[in-house]
């Protein structure tokens, strides 16, 4: 990024901006296409897979990867590949849900803190700080433990510990933006608050929000797998990558494929979302977070 910024002096600002926009557009097209291909492939797997994820077959327990079971079977003879597929819906989908709810709640709170005066700001940010005081995963374990182990409670717990980063980011960016000339203009022209927030503040913080959200998404996948592995999350017989690791732990020596494939799945999911987020951050960087 620093190199790019230095070169920026040589180019006309318009040329530089449009080149960046072009890069971003190209990346979004690539991202969209690869997502489409990925989703089609996953859908095909769902349709074509001959095995149900929770269907035991006691004749083929703990069998290693083979032509009929590509990723082997587990201790109840369930197809690991089918379970990975369905487990992904839990891991990735639940994390998606959790971070979307967290992002919306955090954004609403951050906008309110940044826009509705000092009293609102102080109150909301102190609440945010006090939520921040608890380490994320430990707080989630505690909440899930107190409420009892279930998927719903885990989701609640993760939402409760996940919204503050969004609130803090949105608040600080919107306070900065509130002093920018175009927001002052909007206020002078008598625009109502909702319109200023929706048309002037939100679009200008959206790039930073998007980057933070991809980051939160991949971390939440790890949290969900972690909680399920500890037994607080998705309960068996439902397949979830963390829960699969927990199930497979007892057979680690004899059937390592029970651990390897869910582990790889988590790694790949987290890595690809993280890398996408990093690339987005780079592309949005200079006219996203900084310049609004």
């Amino acid at each position: 990024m620093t190199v790019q910024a230095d070169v920026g002096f040589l180019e006309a600002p318009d040329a530089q901006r449009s080149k960046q926009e072009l890069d971003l557009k190209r990346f979004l097209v690539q991202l969209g296409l690869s997502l489409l291909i990925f989703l089609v492939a996953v859908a095909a797997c769902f349709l074509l897979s001959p095995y149900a994820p929770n269907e035991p077959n006691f004749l083929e327990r703990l069998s290693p990867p083979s032509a009929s079971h590509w990723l082997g079977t587990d201790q109840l003879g369930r197809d690991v590949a089918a379970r990975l597929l369905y487990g992904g819906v839990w891991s990735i989908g639940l994390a998606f849900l959790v971070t979307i709810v967290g992002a919306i709640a955090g954004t609403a709170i951050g906008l309110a803190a940044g826009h509705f005066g000092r009293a609102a700001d102080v109150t909301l940010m102190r609440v945010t700080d006090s939520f921040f005081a608890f380490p994320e995963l430990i707080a989630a374990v505690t909440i899930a433990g107190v409420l009892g182990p279930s998927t719903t409670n885990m989701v609640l717990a993760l939402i409760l510990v996940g919204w503050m980063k969004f609130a803090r980011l949105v608040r600080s960016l919107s306070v900065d933006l509130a002093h920018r000339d175009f927001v002052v203009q909007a206020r002078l022209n008598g625009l109502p608050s909702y319109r200023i927030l929706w048309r002037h503040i939100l679009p200008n913080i959206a790039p930073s929000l998007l980057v933070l959200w991809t980051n939160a998404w991949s971390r939440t996948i790890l949290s969900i797998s972690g909680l399920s592995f500890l037994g607080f999350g998705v309960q068996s017989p439902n397949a979830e990558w963390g829960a699969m690791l927990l199930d497979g732990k007892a057979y680690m020596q004899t059937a390592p494929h029970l651990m390897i494939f869910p582990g790889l799945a988590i790694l790949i999911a987290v890595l690809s979302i993280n890398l996408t987020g990093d690339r987005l951050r780079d592309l949005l960087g200079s006219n996203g977070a900084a310049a609004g």
Partner: protein
Amino acid sequence: MLRVEKLQLRLHGKPILEEVSFDLPRGKTLCIVGESGSGKSSLLRAVNGLMPATFDSLTFRPKNGRPISLKEYWKGRAGLPGSRWVMQDPLSALNPKLALGVSIGESVFAQKLKSLELKAAISAALADVELPAEMAKRRPAQVSMGQAQRACLARALIARPDLVFFDEPLSALDAIVQKQIAATMRRIQTRFDMTFVIVTHDLGFAAAYADQMLVLRGGKVEANQSAEMFFQAPESDYCRELIAAARELGGLPETVVQVSGSKAAIPC
């Protein structure tokens, strides 16, 4: 129409403006001049309720209306009713994510126009500032500085304001564009009978444009005179110095011919 008496502004215990008073009649142009840090922009902000100033009285009389007590008016909002602002840097005064037409249209948001009426009004405002109608679809990054500043003018103009504040409207532009936009400003001022308050540090511009001069230095008023008087017999030594310096640099002609009242083309 705008009368300010003994306005004071303190920030963090430091006095920014001290006992600033002026009285601006309708249809005239007040130029506020001073070096940077003299409180010119702060004065504009204070008069618009964006900064917590104290004053003996601050009255604003809108067209066909009674004078308003601004202390009441500023509870929960800012600005003066029926006034608009044009800021120094058009690129930061326009939301980078919005098309120029949307930004211009927002100026009359309170009127709740139907979309066709709004579209027509935006096109008319663009035409008034000599921009083609298709500019409405462009975003600020896709136009030149001059065009962006014209869009800001259109945003002020579309609301048919009584009073327009300009905060160094030309200083971000090059000389040719400055001259063109100054001419446009004068034309729309005459056509729509508006009162202008212009913050500037360009005495040449002020000489050609102002009816009244308000010179600030370190937050205090150095001169508050009609422009004619100011350039012939300035009120203070500082103003004499200022005028002499501007003459030396060549930005100001030896004899200033005031076109006050007639609003002829601006001699640039």
